[in-house]
């Protein structure tokens, strides 16, 4: 197939040169370009930035603090009545709580969509999503058999659910819709999942070894001189597993926001999102899952 005029390669090179020029220019100017009609004439002019980077970060990550600092009226979907209604429920953190719950509902809908799209053709010719999901399930099934043994394969759905939930949570921040954020960016979500994981670990250990045999090393100083340290270590497991996820996602989001506003949201955020969204998000979801699994496998082994 022959093209008239410029080939695709030339177009890509031209667009790349323009992009790089705009990146260099806009980085130095600290201004944004405004194109439109004003006072009856068509104008292209530079306008000074409305926000500094610090204000942008505060608005993105602590919206309620931003409201109280600037003395603005809070709105949800442009409506003050809706804000007042939610303000009565959530109190001082209305906006962050509302956006967190909205994002969690969207994540749950996405997971339901995955489940139904896979389940529909369960006994039919396998579709592409089904092959993908079966691959993921088989992978984690192998991990569970490796670390917990074949008689505990019933833990595979739990492990796959943790992985899918955190993975969808981390991926959903890359969708370029205003207001979309990773729910794992809020400390409450990783902390809740960490507490749930440790609860499952202890329930599994009690069901395997019996209540007293599991609890004795934590409360009997004659049998285990380090009992207090072990008990504190169980709490620090929750802190370490949840702060790892939270810090990685929050740090990545802040770096993406800062560098994006330095280069005026052109070209760079794609590469940044590839690393901090796709790579770090997948690795952290996998690490959270592996740690939840290995805590169980450590707790059920007999000394």
């Amino acid at each position: 197939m022959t093209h008239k005029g410029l080939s695709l390669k030339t177009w890509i090179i031209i667009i790349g040169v323009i992009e790089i020029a705009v990146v260099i220019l806009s980085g130095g100017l600290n201004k944004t370009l405004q194109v439109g009609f004003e006072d009856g004439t068509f104008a292209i002019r530079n306008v000074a930035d409305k926000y500094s980077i610090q204000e942008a970060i505060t608005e993105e990550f602590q919206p309620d603090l931003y409201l109280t600092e600037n003395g603005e009226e809070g709105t949800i979907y442009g409506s003050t009545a809706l804000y007042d209604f939610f303000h009565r429920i959530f109190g001082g953190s209305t906006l962050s709580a509302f956006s967190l719950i909205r994002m969690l509902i969207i994540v749950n809908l996405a997971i339901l969509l995955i489940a139904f799209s896979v389940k529909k053709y369960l006994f039919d010719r396998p579709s592409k999503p089904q092959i993908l999901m079966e691959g993921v399930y088989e992978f984690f099934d192998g991990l569970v058999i490796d670390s917990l043994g074949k008689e505990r394969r019933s833990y595979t759905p739990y492990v796959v659910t943790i992985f899918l939930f955190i993975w969808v949570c981390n991926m959903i921040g890359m969708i370029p819709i205003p207001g979309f954020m990773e729910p794992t960016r809020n400390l409450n979500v990783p902390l809740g999942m960490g507490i749930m994981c440790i609860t499952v670990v202890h329930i599994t250990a009690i069901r395997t070894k019996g209540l007293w045999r599991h609890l004795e090393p934590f409360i009997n100083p004659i049998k285990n001189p380090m009992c207090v340290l072990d008990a504190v270590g169980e709490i620090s497991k929750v802190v370490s597993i949840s702060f790892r996820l939270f810090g990685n996602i929050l740090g990545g989001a802040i770096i993406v926001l800062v560098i994006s506003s330095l280069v005026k949201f052109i070209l760079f955020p794609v590469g940044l999102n590839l690393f901090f969204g796709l790579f770090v998000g997948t690795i952290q979801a996998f690490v959270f899952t592996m740690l939840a699994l290995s805590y169980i496998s450590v707790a059920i082994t007999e000394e």
Partner: protein
Amino acid sequence: MEMTIAQGIAKAAALLGAGVCMGIGALGPGLGEGFVAGKACEGIARSPENANLITRTMLVGQAVSESTGIYSLVIALLLVFAVKV
């Protein structure tokens, strides 16, 4: 924004603390992850058929040893954004 001298000193100390925290806190994880990656390279060179298992274990180990760096990142973010003077 008007600041008294005491507020300025507190703000400067918080920012300086954030920089020092991130700088020193990044040393340990950097060293540790480098060691892990080097050993994984040795392991893959010795037995290339286990490359998948070694890479998986390497990533988990690196993410675990990264957690102290992440703690210092959280502390630095707290110092920069949460300390109001």
